[in-house]
């Protein structure tokens, strides 16, 4: 039996763990698939899983250049929330959050989704207006949201500096109690295992080098392990979407930037929620292993190197100390970077393309991890049905032509 359970753990312990099966196979690529998903991150694996589960597609491959979950899936700060401003974005992320809430059980793989709440802090009167607006919108969209006053914040988040005389005083916060964090690697592995059980071929160390087209229609991909024919190709390669699009002669309105993060050494529990601040740029939570997981700002230059500049880390440490002065004596264990593909309106693209049978899911910017289940779910629908689901209809490539942008930068941040 392949199902994971406490009982299974005990039984396998008795046989010295020698009988655990592979979580997923490592098959040789077939010559042809009905659907090829390019990119074995969380989004790609989720797409394959939902294609098999929800749409009954039988013959699917996920092609991964390196190892699954090795891109942004394994590099983010694991925050999950759905409190987006605009209805289009909020409903997509809320779909995702609902899937998160049952994901461990659905996949039979504990992704450690921990709904410990997400606070977004306000540091100026304009921040307060923006939060009021977002909370009001969230509630109308059926998304849990509340405004928390500074006095209450002091009680809820010990260690957070909520004093009037700090440089950017905390004037309040939005709270989404259903938000939280998850174990990022487990998401990739859980989807991989569940997809594999439904017959999906997960092929690692297989880099796509070309997208084959004939008469305006996709017919397959060239890879470092040979050509693979496919009726449909879904590309979901965060950080390299423009590169893949170029292979199909498509230009995307995307800029790629390094985004950094770092963790502290493991500490005893000291922070039991997620705190984000756009004004004092930093966000922080504590992992189950005890590390403070901290997000840094985006590096302003474009590039594909998964590393950034140290001054960005310095600024983030300053921000964290501004919020939590006691963390000054805590030490950074490790820092890293990933590449984020950003769209002009800070919203993703889940869309058909001018090439028939070729689909792109990209442009998640800094917010892709939380969307993993919803993104895969909507992308699977788009590929299977050859049309967008209503949840992702607004995220079509067409919007950059029509001008129907969904500005999720938050309010522009200027006043007076």
């Amino acid at each position, binding site marked *: 039996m392949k199902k994971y359970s406490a009982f299974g753990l005990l039984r396998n312990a008795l046989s010295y763990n020698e009988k655990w099966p592979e979580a997923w196979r490592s098959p040789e690529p077939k010559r042809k698939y009905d659907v090829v998903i390019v990119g074995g991150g969380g989004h790609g694996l989720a797409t394959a899983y939902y294609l098999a589960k929800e749409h009954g597609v039988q013959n699917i491959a996920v092609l991964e250049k390196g190892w699954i979950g090795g891109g942004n899936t394994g590099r983010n700060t694991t925050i999950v929330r759905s409190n987006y401003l605009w209805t289009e974005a909020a409903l997509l992320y809320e779909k995702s959050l609902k899937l998160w809430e049952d994901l461990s059980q659905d996949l039979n793989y504990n992704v450690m989704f921990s709904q410990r709440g997400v606070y977004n802090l306000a*540091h100026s009167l304009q921040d307060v207006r923006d939060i009021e607006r977002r909370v009001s919108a969230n509630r109308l969209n059926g998304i849990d949201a509340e405004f928390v006053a500074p006095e209450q914040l002091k009680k809820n988040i010990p260690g957070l500096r909520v004093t009037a005389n700090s440089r950017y005083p905390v004037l309040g916060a939005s709270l989404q109690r259903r938000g939280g964090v998850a174990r990022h690697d487990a998401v990739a592995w859980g989807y991989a295992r569940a997809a594999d059980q439904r017959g999906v071929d997960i092929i690692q160390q297989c880099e796509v080098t070309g997208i084959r087209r004939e008469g305006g229609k996709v017919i397959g991909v060239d890879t470092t392990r040979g050509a693979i024919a496919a009726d449909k190709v879904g590309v979901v390669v965060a950080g390299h979407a423009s590169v893949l699009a170029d292979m199909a002669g498509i230009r995307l309105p995307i800029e790629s930037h390094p985004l950094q993060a770092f963790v502290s050494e493991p500490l*005893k529990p000291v922070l039991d929620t997620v705190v984000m601040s756009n004004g004092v740029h930093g966000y922080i939570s504590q992992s189950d292993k005890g590390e403070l997981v901290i997000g840094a700002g985006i590096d302003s230059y474009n590039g594909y190197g998964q590393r950034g500049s140290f001054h960005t880390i310095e600024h983030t440490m300053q*921000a964290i100390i501004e919020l939590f002065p*006691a963390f*000054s004596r805590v030490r950074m264990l490790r820092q890293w970077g990933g590449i984020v593909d950003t769209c002009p309106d800070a919203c993703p693209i889940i869309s058909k393309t001018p090439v028939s049978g070729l689909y792109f899911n990209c442009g998640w910017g800094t917010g892709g991890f939380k969307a993993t289940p919803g993104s895969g779910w909507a992308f699977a629908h788009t590929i299977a049905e050859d049309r967008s689901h209503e949840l992702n209809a607004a995220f079509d490539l067409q919007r950059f032509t029509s001008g129907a942008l969904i500005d999720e930068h938050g309010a522009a941040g200027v006043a007076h």
Partner: protein
Amino acid sequence: MTSRRLESGGFVDRGKVFEFKFDGRTLKGFAGDTLASALLANDVAVVSRSFKYHRPRGIVSAGADEPNAIMQIGKDDATLPNLRATQTELYNNMVARSTKGWPSVNFDVSAINALFGRVFSAGFYYKTFMRPKRLWRCYERFIRSSAGWGSAPAGNDPDEYAHRNAHCDVLVVGAGPSGLAAAVAASRTGARVILVDEQNEFGGSLLSEDTTIDSVPAMQWLEKTVAELSNCETVQCLTRTTAFGYYDDNFVAAVERCADHLGKPPGQTVRERLWRICAREVVLAQGAFERPLAFCNNDRPGVMMASAVQTYVNRYAVLPGERAVLFTNNDSAYFAAVAFKKAGGLLAAIIDSRQSGAGVTAVTNAVDHGIPIMNGHLVTDVVGKKRVRKAQVAQWSGDTSQTIKNTVSIECDLLMMSGGWSPAVHLHSQAGGKNIWDETHHCFVPGETLQQNRSVGAGAGQWSLMECLQRGGDAGRTTAEACGFVVQAGQTYETPQDQENPIEPLWRVPASRSPDRCAKQFLDFQNDTSVADVRLAVREGYRSIEHVKRYTALGFGTDQGKLGNINGMGVLAEALEVPIAQVGTTTFRPAYTPVTFGAGAGEDIGEIYDPVRKTAMHEWHEMQGAPMEVVGQWLRPWYFPQYGEDIHAAVARECMAARNSLAIMDASTLGKIDVQGRDSVALLERIYTHDVGRMAVGRCAYGIMLGEDGLLMDDGVMARLGEQRFYLTTTTGGAAAVLTWLERWLQTEWPELDVHLTSTTDHWSTIAVVGPKSRELLQKVGCNVSLQRENFPFMTVKDAELGGFPVQLFRVSFSGELAFEVNIGSNYAMAMWELLIDAGQEFQITPYGTETLHVLRAEKGFVIVGQDTDGSVSPVDLKMNWLLSKNKDYLGKRSLQRADLVRTDRKQFVGFVPVDGKTVVAEGTQLVNDPLLPVPTPMCGHITSSYASACLGHPIALGLLQSGHARIGEQVVAAQSDGTYVDMQVVSPVFYDPKSERQNV
């Protein structure tokens, strides 16, 4: 408790006794000790408990690779979590405690976990705790409480940190023999050298080894070399300084621990200083880490790295055991065994896994000291829980797939192990360099580099002292030469030559049962990752080294795999049946050893976290007791309360003064840009939507700029000061962005335009004089130009002299009243302000802040970009069509024709009044047509601004409403975030003086 301190030797100062506390016990050590050496001297065997199984753990190493001795040092707000005892210098009255084990490290109730060791296999938590779903929070709370090592302090950091920038020709990282040789060689050419080492003194391995250089004891050479470097003006020597990060452009970050060895920073000393070093060339001489051997129960206290024992004996004069066994697969550890023996320890045996044993030098040395050697043998297991008691030794054929049947016990309380050495390639790898597998020495060595750096010494796989010195010197000269310095012939060194036998790799030690069934063979001690865990990961399909790391936590600890990763890679390679080179390494990332956030942040925290910008009149505002609003970096007076007034009363009074008499405001924070050049008009025509070229000199105009998407970006009044000169104002928050925007177009798209842009925000202070009496006031203080309408109409600018000061006088209004804006050089602004205040007393001149500014403009329906707009608003939505020139092209013009922007049901800017005539709705509140529709309830807009209006006598609001321009007179519902609803009447956004007559008088 016995003392394990030697009577003589070492570099500790026996004259200086330090008392310290460990887990409540008072112990003694010497100056020069580390906490680890002091604990060993006091015969403390158990210093921690392991992560998962809570097994007792002792000190294993003497450096940055220590996985077990993770301590909480110091008390209260000055406490430091997770310090490695091996790198913590002892000071008097140090308070240290172990970070694991309850109630104590010696008796830990969670040790029961070990009974379920096989259940808690790699990744077990992914397979359980899933049902019932609601219990996950309980499971998680339990997992969290058992994880983590030390605790963060609760209060503010009492210490300070500093940043320092440094430039040099040659940066040398590591002051062991190769680093010293490199630094000396480079310094002799005149190159500017920075030499950093993480330890309290230079010397590296020379401090632990007993050898000679140029026929004199190495210590003499060391003293001479360090003296030469210290006396050289172009050399900066930094001890206690760890180069932890190697970034692009040869930028190396290093942290200097200035005070941790003193307990508390004396006087004005900073605790840590971050060095940001820009080096033209970098020599990496970081040394190497000795590898453990993965036999059963290899984590028991008393099992130590051979080189660590040598360090404790030679450097700290501590004998970590009485009777030792050495288990090795290479020659280097023989010298550690001899050192232990020479210091008075008993060495029961050297167990060498190699059939042919060690080379002549090592063997002769051992035999001379009477140490028995057993070649072709293994230590397969050890006995003893809180301290090693016996080693189980067996003969071995050299076949790793074999299981071992017969073992003999050798009694010992110290097991020294050495699995060979791994060069510390960390910085080389961080710099983007590749690593290649050295088939002879069985280790990864630095390969091709991407930046200006080279590796030498043990860190480059150069193992003999002679080679380290020679290659170090070569590197010093080569790098100096690369920087343009003239280089003399190289120095040669003489050192004892060893005859060695090659290492034979032993990633996993065969045991009495299969590696999956035998007792735990630990790879990563801190994370309790064992050989069986890595094999399990492979069995389950986690085959990439990165998957194995993430699934088993191998290398996740605070030592970042310095100790055990290589064995893990070896075990992985065996399981995958591929060469270890193909397995590769995980990515090396900063920090080499952990760095405090405080050091990273430096001085820029607290009140100087971000520069505070204050206007020239700031002190005056403060004197009046005005609360400040934070606007970007600026502090602006929010309102000026008089005695007993709240914000509402104050704002009402200020508004009425502006409407009825005279008010004054400090508008200095407006962004100001001076535009000059032959093509000024050409540039501004492309940026702004109105016909800039048609403006006569001396005219002002309200202008807006759009993004490429046709949406409003910023607005402001601009003035034409000359044929080729303009003065632009921007929003306070948008000043930098607008200047950047202009420069971006100018520099990257239209470099042919001859235009110069200068920010003059800080040079001009701006005083808005507002109200029906404003003209009278200016006349009263004395103005050399006529202020009458005929001479000085609305929306014009003049150079003038006001009260004896030269000023630029603008007749503009953001309140709808007769108003003037006085631009004056900031050095005179305060004098001008006081002059106007004094002269205005007869008109009851009233200063006002940002809140009144907002109310006044809202009464007139003027938008505030960033409050009433949010990056999704077009000028048409704002009914600003009159600003869109048809005569020219400008940024965003084409986008305005796009399908979505010509929709008539876009959200449009309108005014609102509450139907009840009294509720001031919260700004940001969403608007709905029907609040009773089920979720997701369709929203039709939101409130952007909302105020009580004193002059109108009822609240007013502004906002964006779907098809709003066509819905004047209708009602919508504001759904506030607290769940209450307010009916709102849709009205024109211009509430006051709709014909705008008042500003024109």
